[in-house]
């Protein structure tokens, strides 16, 4: 049975390879993606409409600002749902199962993690802060940051990671991220523009109109990063320990 299932897999793989020969050349100006009116509109109008140096960032945080904000909200809701199902809200401590003993932390792994975790964290901040000019941004930086806390929880145990980033603070940080995103939108509304119309922030920031958009988008990315970090770690902590919040994986 396992081997017969190989036949459709190979067939589909061959078809995909065959289809890939129809792809246009890298950077071909005649390709359908480049010659469609939508992309020419974005290429021509991004600078005029949004005054943002990078087009991908402009699409992500400006043309599709609502979409990105509600994506963050979806991540937040997923975390809340897992917490609501698994977390033990009553006062008494949940019972530990008698037959489970977690393995002691490994000396080599813990020492490697000591060396690696600060580098991962600084790299995640780099990915977050340079989202305008290179691939990256809030989601990617948040995932890396959450992975660094998960690495601590894996190599020692969950308590060790939770003293660094308690689960209550996790929830606060996650909510703070969304508040930061929506707050920037509301602030630009209060300054006389529309929701998420970043250019109005030039009235409170001591920079030009273009740089105000740039800085506001950085703020938005930081908000996304906060939420993703906190929800990643909270999901891991709750799912790996069935809501007991102790012990290793």
């Amino acid at each position, binding site marked *: 049975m396992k081997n017969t299932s190989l036949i459709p897999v190979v067939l589909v793989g061959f078809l995909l390879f065959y289809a890939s020969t129809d792809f246009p050349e890298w950077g071909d100006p005649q390709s359908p993606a480049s010659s469609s009116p939508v992309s020419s509109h974005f290429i021509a109008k991004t600078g005029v409409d949004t005054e943002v140096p990078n087009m991908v960032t402009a699409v992500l945080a400006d043309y599709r600002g609502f979409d990105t904000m509600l994506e963050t909200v979806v991540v937040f809701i997923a975390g809340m749902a897992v917490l609501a199902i698994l977390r033990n809200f009553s006062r008494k401590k949940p019972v530990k199962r008698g037959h489970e003993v977690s393995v002691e932390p490994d000396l*080599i792994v813990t020492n*490697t993690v000591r060396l*690696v975790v600060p*580098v991962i964290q600084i790299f995640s901040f780099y990915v977050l802060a340079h989202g305008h000019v290179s691939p990256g941004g809030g989601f990617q930086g948040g995932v890396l940051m959450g992975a660094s806390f998960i690495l601590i929880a894996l190599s020692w145990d969950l308590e060790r990671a939770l003293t660094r980033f308690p689960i209550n603070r996790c929830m606060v940080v996650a909510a703070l991220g969304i508040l930061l995103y929506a707050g920037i939108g509301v602030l630009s509304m209060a300054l006389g523009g529309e929701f998420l119309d970043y250019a109005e922030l030039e009235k409170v920031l001591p920079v030009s109109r273009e740089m105000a958009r740039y800085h506001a988008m950085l703020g938005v990315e930081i908000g996304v990063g906060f939420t993703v970090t906190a929800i990643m770690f909270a999901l891991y902590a709750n799912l790996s320990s069935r809501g007991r919040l102790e012990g290793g994986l």
Partner: protein
Amino acid sequence: MSMIDFQVIAASGEVSLFPLHLLGMFFGSLGLVFFLGAAVGLIRFPDFYTRMHAAGKGDTLSTMLMLTGFGLVTMEDFSLGSWLLFVKIMGVVLFIFIASPTVSHVLMRAASEDDEMPLTEADGKKSSNKGKKRN
């Protein structure tokens, strides 16, 4: 393969960073040779622990050599940006130098604590006999 490369270089007449690129290509080819050793070992060796030796060691050095080679090959001039890129690639090399032995140790320990895995050759024969009987 490398001979053809040498001829191409000699024909093109580009000499600005020629020795550096040549060194990079030499490192890259050396990395491929060591990766070949690791891949053959991964197939030929009899049990998991010896395969771990092949994969753990061959993987470390070949990845480091290939990345160093590409770091040298992509040097265009001696400007600051070029140096920073090289240092970044060497950072990846350093990370692999630290992380790869740890990964070997972690997998080795996980396997040795699993009771299903025989440790030495004698144990392996015994348990494979047992397995045959069970089947």
